């Protein structure tokens, strides 16, 4: 076994060990920089692993513990998992750098170590949700991710964040309860929890026609459970409060990464356990498709009505997750590949927007009302440019990542018999709706701040880490917009090897 095959396991181990150690290591700055370094190291490890696995053109099941399959525990990784892990770790690192100033202002210094524990646990959960080959391990890390994500919302420790956290927590618990019940049912009818064995058993059940109603029910419960957790319409009501009130780093991590972890797990379960044919046979994908495009439209409509910049971005996340579910709902490999690409591009774009808004708001005493942000881009031009790049990507302007994602969805819809017209129409409507709130927001931040009612905007303090984060996140958006073909090739091959 080549050494590189150990890197995924080592990256998970490193983040979890760091989380445990940070709970006893004193010093806010020390904890913060250790977390930044660990996420950077995991990024490098994941990129190294990605280059090896792409060259090897293979996927590998890594057995953990004493017992081999079907009794022991496994992680399985291929090109897609390597790519997702690299992006998740990189965006975690950049979100930490981008929101540094606000993080130190919002979080009590004594509690910074605990906040960093949670950030490490979120990263470990995201890695495991991408790598795991065991359904119950996925459940355990879903719950770890829930607690860590809720803690990240409430670290600001204000009344509204506490209420937002409890709403987020209860919706998340409903979702994880549904997921747990579905895997217990699956275990009851198959006797397995490891994904390859589950896949064989499900294939046999489908062939024999036994337990098909139970299979359909549990597949629906699993989809609803993971849908609740990844803010699929109409289960998205918790998201704007949670993502809109949290500190910048938390908002960027939650909106850009955490909700994606559950979507990745749903894709893994669909492709590796049930197969897309089974999902299509029960018409679950049709329900996901309809909820996806409802989310795309209604998320954008609610974003248009918002006057608070971060809540507008949070509603935009609902719309963007709608794209992911629409791609999954197409029920084809091409659709799922397009959904994976959307996950990657949104993972770069939304943190870029949150970090930019955080920087812009720092010039007006952290007032994040759109009206208060008028003209603030002149005080911190780089954040204004970053916001512009993110907004244009969301709208779907060519050469930006969002455009490539939309092209992929349009191309994928061609491979379906019945959904092509609806997909193209929804993509067009959604792009127009995105433009209706993002373009005015860009114009607003670059306008002249002439109104007497607005307080004076101060010059932004120099923040090298935020500058670096905005530049790198913007580079990610542009890279995915220009070089999307090689990335899509890795995703498609990764799905084939899954």
């Amino acid at each position, binding site marked *: 076994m080549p050494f590189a095959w150990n890197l995924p396991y080592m990256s998970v181990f490193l983040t979890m060990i760091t989380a445990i150690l940070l709970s006893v290591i004193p010093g806010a700055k020390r904890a913060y920089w250790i977390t930044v370094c660990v996420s950077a190291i995991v990024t490098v490890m994941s990129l190294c692993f990605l280059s090896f696995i792409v060259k090897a053109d293979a996927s590998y099941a890594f057995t953990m513990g004493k017992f081999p399959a079907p009794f022991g525990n496994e992680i399985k990784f291929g090109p897609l998992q390597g790519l997702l892990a690299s992006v998740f770790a990189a965006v975690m690192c950049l979100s930490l750098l981008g929101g540094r100033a606000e993080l130190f202002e919002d979080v009590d210094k004594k509690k910074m170590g605990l906040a960093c524990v949670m950030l490490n646990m979120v990263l470990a959960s995201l890695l495991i949700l991408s790598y795991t080959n065991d359904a119950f391990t996925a459940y355990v890390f879903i719950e770890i991710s829930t607690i860590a994500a809720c803690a990240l919302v409430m670290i600001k420790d204000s009344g509204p964040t506490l209420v937002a956290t409890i709403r987020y927590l209860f919706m998340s*618990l409903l979702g994880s309860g549904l997921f747990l019940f579905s895997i217990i049912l699956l275990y009851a009818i198959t006797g397995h929890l490891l994904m390859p064995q589950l896949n064989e058993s499900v294939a046999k059940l489908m062939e024999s026609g036994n337990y098909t109603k139970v299979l359909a029910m549990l597949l629906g419960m699993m989809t609803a459970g993971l849908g609740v957790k990844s803010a699929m319409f109409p289960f998205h009501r918790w998201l704007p409060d949670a993502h809109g009130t949290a500190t910048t780093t938390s908002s960027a991590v939650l909106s850009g990464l955490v909700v994606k972890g559950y979507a990745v797990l749903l894709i893994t379960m669909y492709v590796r356990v049930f197969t897309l044919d089974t999902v299509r046979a029960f018409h679950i994908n049709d329900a996901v498709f309809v909820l996806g495009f409802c989310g795309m439209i209604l998320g954008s409509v609610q974003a248009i009505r918002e006057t608070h910049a971060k809540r507008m971005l949070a509603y935009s996340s609902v719309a963007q997750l709608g794209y992911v579910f629409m791609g999954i709902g197409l029920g084809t490999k091409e659709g799922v590949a397009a959904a994976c690409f959307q996950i990657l591009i949104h993972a770069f774009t939304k943190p870029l927007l949150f970090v930019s808004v955080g920087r812009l708001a720092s010039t007006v005493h952290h007032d994040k009302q759109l009206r208060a942000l008028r003209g603030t881009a002149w005080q911190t031009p780089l954040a204004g440019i970053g916001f512009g790049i993110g907004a244009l990507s969301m709208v779907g302007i060519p050469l930006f990542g969002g455009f490539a994602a939309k092209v992929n969805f349009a191309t994928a819809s061609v491979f379906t018999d019945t959904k092509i017209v609806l997909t193209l129409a929804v993509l067009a409507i959604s792009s127009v709706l995105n433009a209706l709130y993002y373009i005015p927001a860009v114009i607003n931040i670059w306008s002249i701040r002439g109104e007497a009612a607005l307080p004076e905007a101060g010059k932004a303090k120099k923040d090298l880490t935020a500058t670096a984060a905005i530049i790198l996140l913007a580079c990610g958006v542009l890279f995915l917009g220009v070089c999307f073909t090689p990335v899509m090739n890795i995703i498609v091959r990764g799905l084939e090897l899954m």
Partner: protein
Amino acid sequence: MLSIIINNRFAIASVILFVTGFVNMMVHPNLIKKIVSFNIMDSATFLMLASRGMIAGRTAAILTDGGANTSLYVNPIPAGLVLTGIVVSVSVSAFSLALVQRIYGTYGTVDMRELLEAMKKKGE
């Protein structure tokens, strides 16, 4: 019909408990009762798992003088999963209760409707 119900009594009980917990968690405004409902929901899944893992006439997989005859024992994995699930459930309950206590300290209520009204009054 009756025999089907008797044979699947644990599954039926766990589904009833799960739905009870799920619905209460969705609709009940009291935060403490929501946490209790979540625990009922989780207990339903543990009941389902434990009942499916049990085979009448067999015992727990603990090797004694009887030797390693596998036909004497039940599969230990469901019991292991129930234990793991209980640990997760306890952790989440503890976190939820701590959060509710903090909310009560800030707003003086654990009722979701009153909480939202209190937030409105404070202009949050």
